[in-house]
């Protein structure tokens, strides 16, 4: 076979396909294609996605020279680039915030940037320049370790659909204003915020992920919310605040989310929801709620168990339930009432669609076991129930298993899986 006579059909592929291929390559390899041949020299310069990370330049022991190298690489790529840039991602462990980054953002704001992801080194938090707020075409913004201070006349990102802020310093008014001024916002993720009292008004919001120490979360106007995931951390201040709070957190949080399909709560979430009483409020029914994951429920706290019950009872179409207890056992504060569940639970209530149940970190506490008994007895469609004992339960496993076997099962198909060795 004569190599020279073979045609180079690869270079003859349509430009759109070549762009697709270059986009699927790491940026360094894509830029390297410019030395393949004269046809390939500037093919890469029109790709609309630029993803920069620490692998763009060879590794080096000297951090300063590595940073310098990476910065030069970014500068050169930006300078040689031709055409709009729709996606710009910079994730680096070593690159520190510096004035050059402001210049890049200015450059991007003039190139119709749509998706921006910025995550720099841990040393000094990057202060977002004002040109960030003039990126009108932004649909996705992800910032890590930033300081945001939107100007007074900032009207919001009118096209923003996806906002992720992690470890961002921003005043409460500013964050609330930012959220409410993005009319198309569909997904909001806020991580590691300290002591926020947040009121979220986002008419199109569908996905909400919150993680951090929140004093209060109020979902005021989020009718389309479909999935919520909250991880609530607690500090002493917040615990105090909770004790003094009079308002009902459950209503405030879950009061207006009729379309909710999935709820996921971690750490102190159920405790948060248990604060305040729901006296006088009309019960909210979650017709679309199909999946509930609640972790770290303290089965010793009656209030938390009540929250769990309330959720479960008011979700007629629940299909999946995953519950985990806290592994921290402390002596029971209140005496166990054997009829507790019978009192709270409407007799004719059945979990008609509940198919999968997973209970983890089971410590064998009375309320916990009674809850499992309740589920087994009222779920006619149950298929699988998986019980995983807590690692701290050494000898009580057998007793637990014996109790579990005695529980009546409403579903003849129900499989009870007892995980002996938790992963």
């Amino acid at each position: 076979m004569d190599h020279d006579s073979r045609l180079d059909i690869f270079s003859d592929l349509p430009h759109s396909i070549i762009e697709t291929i270059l986009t699927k390559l790491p940026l360094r390899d894509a830029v390297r294609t410019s030395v393949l041949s004269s046809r390939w020299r500037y093919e890469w310069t029109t790709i609309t996605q630029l993803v920069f990370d620490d692998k763009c330049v060879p590794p080096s022991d000297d951090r300063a020279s590595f940073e310098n190298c990476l910065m030069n690489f970014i500068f050169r790529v930006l300078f040689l680039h031709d055409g709009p840039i729709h996606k710009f991602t910079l994730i680096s462990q070593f690159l520190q915030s510096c004035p050059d980054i402001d210049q890049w953002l200015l450059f991007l704001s003039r190139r119709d940037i749509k998706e921006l992801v910025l995550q720099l080194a841990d040393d000094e938090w990057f202060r977002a320049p004002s040109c960030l707020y003039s990126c009108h075409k932004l649909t996705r913004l992800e910032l890590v370790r930033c300081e945001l201070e939107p100007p007074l006349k900032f009207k919001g990102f009118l096209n923003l659909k996806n906002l992720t802020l992690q470890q961002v310093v921003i005043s409460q008014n500013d964050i609330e204003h930012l959220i409410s001024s993005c009319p198309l916002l569909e997904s909001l993720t806020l991580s590691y915020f300290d002591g926020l009292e947040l009121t979220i008004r986002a008419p199109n919001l569908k996905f909400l992920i919150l993680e951090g120490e929140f004093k209060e979360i109020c979902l005021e106007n989020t009718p389309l919310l479909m999935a919520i995931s909250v991880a609530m951390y607690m500090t002493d201040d917040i615990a105090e605040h909770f004790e003094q709070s009079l308002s009902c957190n459950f209503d405030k949080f879950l009061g207006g989310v009729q379309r909710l399909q999935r709820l996921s709560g971690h750490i102190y979430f159920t405790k948060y929801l248990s604060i305040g009483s729901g006296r006088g409020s009309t019960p909210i029914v979650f017709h679309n709620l199909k999946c509930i994951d609640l972790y770290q429920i303290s089965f010793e706290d009656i209030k938390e168990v009540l929250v769990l019950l309330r959720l479960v009872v008011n979700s007629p179409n629940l299909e999946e339930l995953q519950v985990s207890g806290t592994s921290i056992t402390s002596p029971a504060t209140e005496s166990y009432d054997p009829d507790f569940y019978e009192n709270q639970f409407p007799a004719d209530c059945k979990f008609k669609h509940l198919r999968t149940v997973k209970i983890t970190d089971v410590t064998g506490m009375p309320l916990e076991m009674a809850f499992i008994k309740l589920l087994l007895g009222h779920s006619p469609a149950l298929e699988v129930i998986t019980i995983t004992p807590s690692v701290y339960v050494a000898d009580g496993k057998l007793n637990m298993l014996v109790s579990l076997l005695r529980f009546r099962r409403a579903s003849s198909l129900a499989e009870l899986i007892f995980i002996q060795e938790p992963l």
Partner: protein
Amino acid sequence: MVEADREVMKAEMMKSYIWLQTTDGSIQEVEQEIATFCPLICQEMHSGLGTSKTYPISLPDRVNPAMLSLIIDYCRFHQAPGRSNKERKVYDEKFIRMDSNRLCELTSAADSLQLKPLVDLTSRALARIIEGKSPEEIRGIFHIPDDLTEEEKLEPLKNTMEDSRIRLLNRLYARKRKELKERENLKNAQNEEECVDNRPLDDLLSFINGGNGDSKGATASKSKKKNRKKKDQQKNAHEDNNPSNNISFCNAIDNDKKKTNGHDPSCPKNKLHGLSFPILSQLKLQDTRDINFAPEHEFDDSDLDDEIDPAMKEKIDREVEDFARRLNSDWPERMQEILCLGQEKRHIPMSMNGNDASVKLNPKIKMRSEVPKHSSFI
């Protein structure tokens, strides 16, 4: 049983077929539900084509029969509803195992049929082939012609410190810079010497003017005057060795008094010492100082009047910079020459300088008021 067979037959007959024609003229029959997985075929079907053998759907050029059968296999697998995601993934991985040329053809064909999932799959496969490979390897796989010049390849996109050629360039560049700096320093040093050497040379020159006899003294200066006229210094060397020429120069010197003062600061030393060895000194000059000398000889005019004062010094400095800059801008081309010519490296600098000198010389000749002898730094 017959009833069951009849049912199966009925089901078979219910399936409708589409006729597809590739550019080579061959017509193929494909089940409708499979073919319509491709948006383009679907479109064509809606506009009425493909229902019979006489009116088949003409497929685009890029779809040859081999590719068509591959694509149909792909469609057949994926349009079946009961497959799990894992099954599809496994099938895809196996499907794209083919040589890179076929993969390109397949991508092209899928693109022309607007079959996006297959285009994505094949693009990803091609990207995986390219990833992590050196340009030479990639060129080998896809038979891409290597038609970029060395210079174009060395554009500073990748991390330049890796490339040995860039390192070589940098080294040469650094060396040249150093030489430039040395010359400059030397020139500055020579400025001091000038004041010292002026008078003795004047004496010498008047002595030369006075008598034709002392050809030895004359040859040195005459040869320098010769250098001015010739572009090629090596040529000068030859001519200077020829005594007959010296005599004619002597006359030339006599005619122009000013020109006789055409000493150059660095040469007096050599001249004084090397009076008895004109050729030797000539060669010496050419070896080390030729660059400086060649243009200097021409600018004898102002030598007499020359006194180093601060203003002049500034001018000198400016011209040094100017010339250095000019050199720097010529540098890439020079390096190209160096890299291409390779062995002739040694000779090139000389002619380079010669050329530069001559380039610089011509405009300078007219500007007598300037300080020409210092403008010849290379």
